[in-house]
């Protein structure tokens, strides 16, 4: 089963039309794609809507590494993961959306862990700006009492 799978190649098409040729073992690390393949509703080309080429390339890179290094030491993989997810916030956000939408569990795990590390020591102000975005932050801070409350140090 697995040997026949390895020869199979799948084409993933990103939202902006770029196509990636990926071995099926790598592609099925995404549960969503795996389901499509198993139900045989996938032709050779699988469209991956709302994930652009840039992000899709990253996701494929991650899956490839994980597929290759199954036998490798877990610590190596860990360092790769932590380096891989160490990106700017926008890329991180896009990656999370992609991983969540495509259901790539390992990637989602690594990403969530990274975000957790990022925000662990941050103050309430930081979280409002970074995590919730500026607009919501403005709405919240227009509330005077809320602000006084939040300016207190809760540690």
């Amino acid at each position, binding site marked *: 089963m697995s040997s026949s799978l390895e020869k199979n190649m799948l084409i993933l098409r990103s939202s902006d039309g770029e196509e990636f040729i990926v071995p099926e073992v790598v592609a099925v690390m995404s549960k969503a794609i795996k389901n499509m393949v198993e139900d045989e509703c996938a032709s050779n080309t699988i469209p991956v809507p709302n994930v652009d080429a840039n992000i899709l390339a990253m996701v494929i890179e991650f899956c490839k590494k994980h597929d290759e290094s199954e036998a490798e030491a877990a610590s190596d993989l860990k360092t790769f993961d932590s380096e891989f997810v160490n990106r700017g916030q*926008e890329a991180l956000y896009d990656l999370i959306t992609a991983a969540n939408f495509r259901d790539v569990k390992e990637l989602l795990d690594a990403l969530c862990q990274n975000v957790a590390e990022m925000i662990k*020591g*941050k103050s309430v102000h930081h979280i409002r700006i*970074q995590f919730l975005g500026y607009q919501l932050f403005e709405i919240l*801070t227009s509330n005077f009492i809320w602000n006084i409350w939040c300016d207190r140090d809760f540690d």
Partner: protein
Amino acid sequence: MYSHSWKEATMANQERNTEATDDAMSSSSDYNLSLPMDIIVDIFNRLPVKSLVRFRCVCKTFRHLISNPTFIASHLLHHRTPTTATIFTFKRRTTTSLSLLRSPSSSQNPVNLVHPWSNHTRNLQLIGSINGLLCLCLRLSNHPLHFHRRIILLLWNPATKLFKSLPSPTFQIPPTFFHLSLGFGFGFHSTTSSSDYKVVRIVSFNLRIRVEVYSAISNCWREIRGMDLHFYLHKLSCEAIVNGAPYWLLATPSNHCFRFTWFDVQNEAFVMLPGLDFSGFYIGTLVHWKLMDWKDNAAVVVLCPGNPFFDVWMIEDRCGGESNWCKKFVIGPVLGVEQFWVLQCTKNGEILVAEAGGRIFLYNPRNGDTKDIPIHGVPFEAFHYVESLVTPDVHFHKDLELNSLDNMQIVMAQEEEFKLEIPDKEADKIDSCFLAIE
């Protein structure tokens, strides 16, 4: 005047916003990072309690999420194995202090926990620690004859700093009893349908035993009857807590034979363990022993004075349904120490050892290393501890899984039952038995 100050404050805030945005962020000032809820839950599950307590103030959604019982349970599950610590109490001449030793402990020194009753430090005793909730016993009276009176029991979560004092037990001890001993135990059970924290109170007087159980859900004490056990209560807390069940020693005539019993928290009954008889193994009468939680198993650690090794006895199931104690490991030698006793085995396999001279150290049985813990005093109790968001107040909806409609129906039922009217505003707040009774 009011509007003026409002405006001023808003403007000041906006200034601060831009400042904060500038130094915190590079590009994404208008970038709205709205993640799906399940991702936020996933991220929050990985955060330490300290951060979550702070993030409750970020917005209403976060606050709601972080105080949600389902989230609290999943957060606890996520943190139970990797980050456990040991909590232990120290008696000095005038004070009792609670110390927290985080594991992996090789890098960190123990932290002193600051509790809200610092003026009663002398008479504070730790009864147990389960899922981040500590059960403490506070004695307000120092008189040796009245030691059992004016005892306050508290449930306290040091991570969220929430605490709750338990109601007074139903069975009060008359002031003239002698030959009296008192023991407490802290237990927890969890099934798919319900979970509850319980405190067991054992009063032994004139060779009679009375046992009461406090349940956090019903917030009251209830006596359980039909018991004929002779507890050997030499301290207020139980011997050990293993998998949420408190263990006690029973009185036996022999010095080398022990019988233990544990409290089945769900069914509220005592279960006997087979007798542990090691009279053939050790020569001499002076043997130190301690019952402890050895990686989620009940184990008795036995030490002979002068011997650098110690034995770990555990219960082994034999075929035919019988189980018996047997000597599982010999650990040691603990070098460079004359006389020592074992306090606790941490979850990562290190052993907390106290030397007769007052030195406390961690012993690693794998390579024989010892590491001093810079604390002085006589160590007393040691329990496993895990930081959690568990609240000492258990609410209706946690266990009955009620929504607001059900809550409303309960309020209406109460109104009918007691022939009184409850205003809507108050009704919303009624979410625990305690409030409902009021």
